[in-house]
């Protein structure tokens, strides 16, 4: 291959240079005509042209016609970032019969016209220099071929909330085998905790439970609840994943969900599903509509498991008619071979005790919006009656406070996207459940009701005599009787209002799940500044990670309501199908390659590679045994770290050999000839 490169380099090349205006994006600053004229003065240039939009159909056709008519064998296109259109132009030159890797993109937009818009003349000079460098490099490029490799078609879905459920169902219905992993003892996630959903007020459980059952019963879905991903090896299309099934201490196949055990268990435990507002037992079924409906023992509370003594308690085992209790159960590891991953680990609710001004955690009548959901839910600790957690009496005045932990640089700068609508819904629920006599106020910053049917929902709240106070309180205080009072400066009336209330509901925002750090490590899934998982492109590739084969669904990518979550989940499932359907994938050839003879087996590259793409192979050659680096092509992302660090120069990135890079450096340092 290197020989071919040398041969090509020494042969006479016929280069075409194409300068794009990008409308006025480039041409507004850079004198594109001068750049094209300058290119003509460089050696081996057969043609140099400029055009308004090179990426347009006529622009591409112009290049293709020239390749055929003028027998061009190298192309330089001076245009926007290669991230934008390199693929477009590769396809275009390939259609004209040229190897798509004999193309060099020179970035005149992000590297020249945009940053130097104040200095057009200097920008033009820089553009010329970059074109000169591109021409020097393009001569040394080698023709490369993409490779196709076969892949596994099964999909791993991490997280069993509505996003994971939806993605699993879509994939399973399309014929893909799905492994749905959920950390909690039941699937359902956040949505299972909600009472009603905005803006239609349909009951969350009524629309979610059927989907939970469907996904659990689907022949193509393997449900792994109470389980976590332990390790991930491999690369797009070829992942090897280990899942740990944590012990339930209950045999899932035998347990019938009768809850006899829960009735006899003597240990009371705060109920996580009910946001610790109520108590459950050390052996319990996660929620009333849990899927699978199987009891789980909490080893932190169970007397038998804590003491590890055979004669302690054991009441559940005595009560269980199905003989399902097994105190000896051990963690179990499941090994899976999968092609793609959908991450749907969701988000958590902001902990308002970090904001002392609201008294959350100190004043019992200050509650969070997710706690309100449990209070309002018929299956919750108050059986759906809205009662003050302090007195157990129905409140006479309920105040909702918006933007708690969101739009706040001290905590989370972003808007939580759901807080306004959640409070509107909860305010409407208070009105519907408690009638005309209860006073309802919403203290807001900006009320954002942007979704379909949301503005109408806001209007409905006002129609129901819910009062909106334009202002956020700064100190919530508690009176001796447990009631709350605080001042709000109301923007509409310019009045300082002193408000008295016996329940304050905080619109806590959504924050990245605590699992995200682990997900980040396991799957090489990057995070954005807000802590959520980062999509490959904010507009054009919102459903996938920049690591190939990893897709994002739901609130792990950013705060989302249910409609958006479901839409993204279906989208991510479709992207996974797109990747895996054919059973093989195409690999970019711009990877690291090892020169066997030069490799000394020092392992520097292996220790540096962020994608674990280097494996050390031991091999015997005639009389000596030698350690040698080998690149796993499918995992290598072509980042070049190994190549920069290799002490013998044995490992190179295709198209970025020392020779190719140094030719560019020489061109950069060369004096400008002619042109200006």
């Amino acid at each position: 291959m290197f020989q071919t490169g040398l041969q090509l380099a020494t042969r006479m090349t016929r280069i075409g240079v194409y300068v794009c205006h990008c409308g006025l994006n480039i041409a507004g600053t850079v004198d594109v005509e001068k750049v094209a004229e300058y290119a003509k003065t460089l050696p081996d240039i057969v043609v140099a042209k400029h055009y308004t939009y090179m990426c347009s159909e006529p622009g591409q056709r112009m290049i293709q016609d020239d390749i055929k008519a003028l027998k061009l064998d190298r192309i330089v296109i001076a245009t926007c970032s290669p991230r934008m259109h390199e693929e477009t132009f590769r396809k275009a030159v390939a259609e004209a019969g040229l190897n798509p890797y004999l193309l060099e993109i020179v970035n005149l937009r992000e590297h020249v016209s945009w940053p130097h818009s104040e200095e057009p003349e200097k920008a033009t000079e820089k553009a010329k220099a970059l074109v000169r460098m591109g021409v020097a490099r393009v001569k040394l490029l080698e023709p490369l071929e993409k490779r196709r490799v076969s892949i596994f078609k099964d999909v791993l879905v991490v997280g069993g909330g509505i996003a994971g459920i939806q993605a699993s169902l879509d994939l399973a219905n399309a014929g893909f085998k799905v492994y749905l992993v959920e950390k909690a003892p039941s699937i359902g996630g956040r949505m299972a905790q909600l009472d009603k959903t905005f803006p239609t007020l349909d009951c969350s459980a009524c629309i979610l439970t059927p989907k939970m059952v469907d996904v659990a019963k689907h022949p193509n879905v393997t449900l792994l609840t109470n389980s976590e991903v332990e390790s991930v090896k491999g690369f797009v299309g070829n992942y090897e994943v280990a899942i740990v099934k944590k012990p339930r201490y209950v045999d899932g196949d035998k347990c019938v969900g009768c809850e006899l055990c829960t009735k006899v268990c003597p240990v009371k435990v705060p109920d996580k599903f009910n946001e610790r507002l109520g108590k459950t037992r050390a052996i319990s079924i996660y929620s009333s509509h849990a899927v699978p409906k199987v009891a789980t023992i909490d080893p932190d509370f169970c007397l038998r498991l804590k003491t590890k003594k055979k004669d302690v308690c054991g009441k559940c085992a005595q009560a269980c008619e199905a003989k399902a209790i097994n105190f000896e159960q051990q963690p179990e590891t499941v090994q899976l071979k999968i092609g793609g991953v959908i991450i749907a680990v969701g988000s958590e609710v902001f902990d308002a005790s970090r904001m002392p001004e609201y008294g959350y955690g100190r004043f019992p009548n200050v509650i969070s919006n997710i706690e309100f959901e449990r209070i309002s839910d018929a299956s919750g600790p108050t059986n759906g009656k809205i009662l003050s957690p302090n007195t157990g009496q129905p409140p006479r005045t309920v105040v909702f406070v918006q933007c708690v932990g969101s739009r706040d640089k001290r905590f989370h700068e972003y808007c939580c996207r759901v807080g306004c609508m959640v409070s509107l819904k909860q305010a409407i629920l208070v009105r519907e459940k408690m009638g005309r006599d209860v006073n309802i106020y919403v203290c807001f910053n900006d009320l954002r009701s942007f979704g379909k049917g949301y503005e109408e929902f806001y209007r409905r709240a006002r129609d129901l005599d819910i009062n909106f106070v334009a202002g956020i309180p700064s100190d919530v205080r508690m009176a001796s009787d447990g009631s709350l009072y605080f001042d709000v400066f109301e923007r509409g009336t310019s009045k300082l209002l002193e408000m008295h209330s016996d329940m304050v509901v905080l619109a806590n925002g959504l924050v990245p799940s605590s699992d995200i750090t682990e997900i980040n490590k396991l799957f090489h899934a990057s995070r954005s500044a807000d802590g959520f998982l980062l999509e490959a492109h904010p507009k054009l590739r919102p459903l996938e990670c920049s690591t190939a084969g990893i897709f994002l669904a739901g609130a792990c990518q950013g705060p989302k309501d249910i409609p958006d979550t479901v839409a993204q989940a279906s989208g991510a499932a479709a992207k996974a199908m797109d990747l895996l359907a054919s059973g093989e994938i195409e690999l970019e050839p711009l990877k690291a390659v090892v020169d066997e003879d030069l490799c000394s087996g020092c392992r520097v590259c292996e220790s540096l590679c962020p994608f674990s793409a280097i494996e050390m192979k031991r091999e015997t050659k005639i009389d000596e045994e030698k350690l040698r680096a080998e690149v796993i092509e499918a995992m290598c992302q072509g980042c070049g770290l190994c190549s920069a660090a290799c002490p013998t120069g044995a490992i190179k990135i295709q198209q970025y050999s020392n020779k190719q890079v140094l030719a560019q450096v020489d061109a950069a340092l060369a004096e400008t000839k002619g042109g200006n």
Partner: protein
Amino acid sequence: MSLIDSMSMAKPNLKTRSKILAKLRGRDLVNCFQCIKCTSGCTALKLLELEPHEIEKLVNLGLVDELVSSDIIWTCVTCLKCVQRCPQKASPYHVIIALRNLAVEREAKIPEEFMKKVSQILETGLAESMQKVTTRKMETCDRESLKLPKLAGPKESFQAAFMKALEER
């Protein structure tokens, strides 16, 4: 009590508020989301400091007692621009008229000009009084000099109907 205006120590008067809402036949005309467009375009704002959005909000909050006895509700020039422009089809104008009617009911202090107008309508049946006119030749004329017949006063039935209408509001 759920709310106090810390400056005036006023509290919401929910009874009066429901009375106003009854006059407005529901909540539609106070269904305001405080875009403040009404105040931006209010004819009475610059000279008379009327802020229609504030009136909407005060009625919603129930802080109406002060409002009913204030002079500000009498400054509206009833241009109806707020009604035309409101994106939520609320109407500060209708709310102001409802507040004025309530003020009359409560026999609150009403600006003299308004009372004069009422007695004039009662006496003459006309919203504007007879005025003299100056011609281009600078002659001043009135009905008498133009030999027009004297206007008859309103019928007794009109006065009765007018009084009745006033009371019903």
